[in-house]
């Protein structure tokens, strides 16, 4: 379902989902051509979780994210060209090339630190929440992590700290392995986590936890809005698990795009290779959202096609900017690691 929001807001959510999708798809050929070398993780398939969830926040709230951070930063309004420059290790990158894909941050948007250690941010998020409570500034922290993060001991330690101290933090677990196609391919989810369903873990620490469909933008928006309200009222931490179905392009070690996204796929997936067709037909949150907008008469197919064209132009310009951006000077490696 669509979030209960005015039309302009709905279209903006849609635009940001397009930005994420086309940004992420643009990375694959850049990597394959050797324009950047490091490993990278794409947010494709999770757009309807991050975009509506992040739209529920105040501009001064804190967010923590992991190695799969591109979508979160873009959902919050980070400039695609500077994020892309960071991923390419360039001087114009968000972190001046010192962080890369895993560690992109944007402190002005509330992203202070992105960790490539899957549960690294969970204790940190209790810290910003502790500071907000001490400073009485009403700022909330959202901690965005994947299901694998719960396997590290940092997660339960942080849940205990957050619950005991009623800290203003939302733990938003994005489980992109709805059918167990995550880390343990072709195995059940419980193959790597004895606490299953995953919400059992926060519940053991008396943190209210719920499981939702992360493909349903309306449900994500309603659930996150309600959780955020409770946290702002001083009720302590909340946990949401949003389930999505893993994008077939990330089934291999290095991402590959099974079919370039185009909003027309929302109504016709016959051109998609058979192996990936079902995902694009029923599990692609962006295409679900596009269909819902048209069905609810909030946009026409032409509106969406025109919006997508503009986004593609913006991403093409971002690629041009990032590729043209210079590398940092080698001596910079020896500088600026102390404040």
């Amino acid at each position, binding site marked *: 379902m669509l979030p209960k929001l005015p039309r302009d807001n709905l279209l903006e959510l849609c635009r940001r989902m397009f930005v994420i999708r086309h940004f992420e798809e643009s990375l694959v050929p850049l990597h394959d051509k050797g324009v950047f070398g490091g490993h990278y993780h794409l947010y494709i398939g999770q757009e309807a979780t991050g975009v509506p969830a992040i739209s529920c926040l105040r501009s001064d709230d804190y967010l923590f994210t992991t190695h799969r951070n591109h979508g979160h930063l873009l959902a919050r309004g980070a400039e695609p060209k500077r994020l892309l420059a960071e991923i390419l290790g360039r001087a114009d990158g*968000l*972190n001046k090339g010192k962080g890369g894909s895993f560690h992109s941050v944007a402190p002005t948007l509330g992203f*202070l630190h992105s960790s490539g250690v899957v549960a690294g941010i969970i204790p940190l998020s209790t*810290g910003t929440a502790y500071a907000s409570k001490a400073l009485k500034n009403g700022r909330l922290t959202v901690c965005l992590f994947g299901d694998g993060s719960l396997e590290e001991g940092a997660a339960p330690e942080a849940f205990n700290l957050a619950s005991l101290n009623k800290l203003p933090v939302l733990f938003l677990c994005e489980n992109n392995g709805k059918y167990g196609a995550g880390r343990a391919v072709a195995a059940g989810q419980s193959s790597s986590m004895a606490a299953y369903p995953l919400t059992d873990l926060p519940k053991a620490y008396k943190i209210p936890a719920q499981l939702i469909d992360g493909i349903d933008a309306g449900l994500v928006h309603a659930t996150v809005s309600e959780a955020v309200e409770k946290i702002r009222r001083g009720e302590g931490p909340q946990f949401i698990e949003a389930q999505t179905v893993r994008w077939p392009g990330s089934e291999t070690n290095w991402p590959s795009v099974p079919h370039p996204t185009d909003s027309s796929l929302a109504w016709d997936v016959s051109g998609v290779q058979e192996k990936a067709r079902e995902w694009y037909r029923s599990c692609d949150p962006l295409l679900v959202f596009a269909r819902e907008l048209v069905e609810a008469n909030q946009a026409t197919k032409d509106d969406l096609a025109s919006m997508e064209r503009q986004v593609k132009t913006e991403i093409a310009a971002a690629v041009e900017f990032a590729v043209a951006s210079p590398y940092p000077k080698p001596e910079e490696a020896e500088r600026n690691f102390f404040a």
Partner: protein
Amino acid sequence: MRELAYYEAKFEALDEIMAADQRVHLINGTFLSLSPHRHVFQNLAKKYGDRMMSPPISELGFCGLATGAAMAGLRPIVDLSTGSFIYEAWPQVANEAANAYSMSGGQTRVPVVFHLFHGLRGGGAAQHSGSPQAMLWNCPGLEIAIPSSPRDVKGLLKTAVASDNPTIFVDHVRLLDLRGEVPENDKPIPFGVADIKRAGSDVTLIATSHTVQVCLKAAEKLAKEGIEVEVVDPRTLVPFDLATILSSVEKTRRVVIADETHQSCGVAAEIAARIAETGFDKLKTRIRRVSTLDVPVPYSPPLEAHIGPSESRIIDAVRASVA
């Protein structure tokens, strides 16, 4: 001049720091380990209880909490108590706190202090006698302060809390009752400034933490044999004041380094390497190390005493260097 016990100077610093800056919060512990002086912490708790947190036994969790709180504008001081417990928090200290500033391209500051008691304490055995400062020195992005006197603990603690970088504050329980001069209204001691604890012309004896005090006693005994030892205390490992050490070496031309970290890749090893690289031509004899032997710390008292940088081992090394 006014004289204070080490623990009194340390708590005078904590009191002044907390009074001056509302952003300072104390996370975990009493900053006294198992010392009997609990009343001083209680006095502090009465005044600043609303800025103290007593977390569960979750070193990884609360070191992360303190690091995150520092990112968001507080200045937390975390007491890990026994130094070896920082191993439980390694991912947050070495992989998050140490890297955040660099990784963010200089945008995210992490003004957190991790306080710990390192070293041989008498019966601590292998899991409560660790000296993790050598491993942490191998982790760029952390400042490391290591006081050896009442005046230094006060002045260095103030600088540690004022620093915008994550700082490891390495303390030693065997220093807590040491008495020494601490001037009223003393200034904070800047990082990266070594202190000549005793002047001498024959051998440069470099030491840190409690071993500085052992070296001072050894120096008095050696003076009776006519060997004048210069005891140099770097006071901070990061930043490191090599210049003061080299000028002492220029004078004495002999170096002994005494330190409680294990010998391999230890603090003495790194200091020896730096002197050898930049001051080899000044040396008249080889550099000698008196470190903790490379074995897990044994419990039994004579065994523990055997492996540490004892006065007798230090004296032997100094004698050998002038022989």
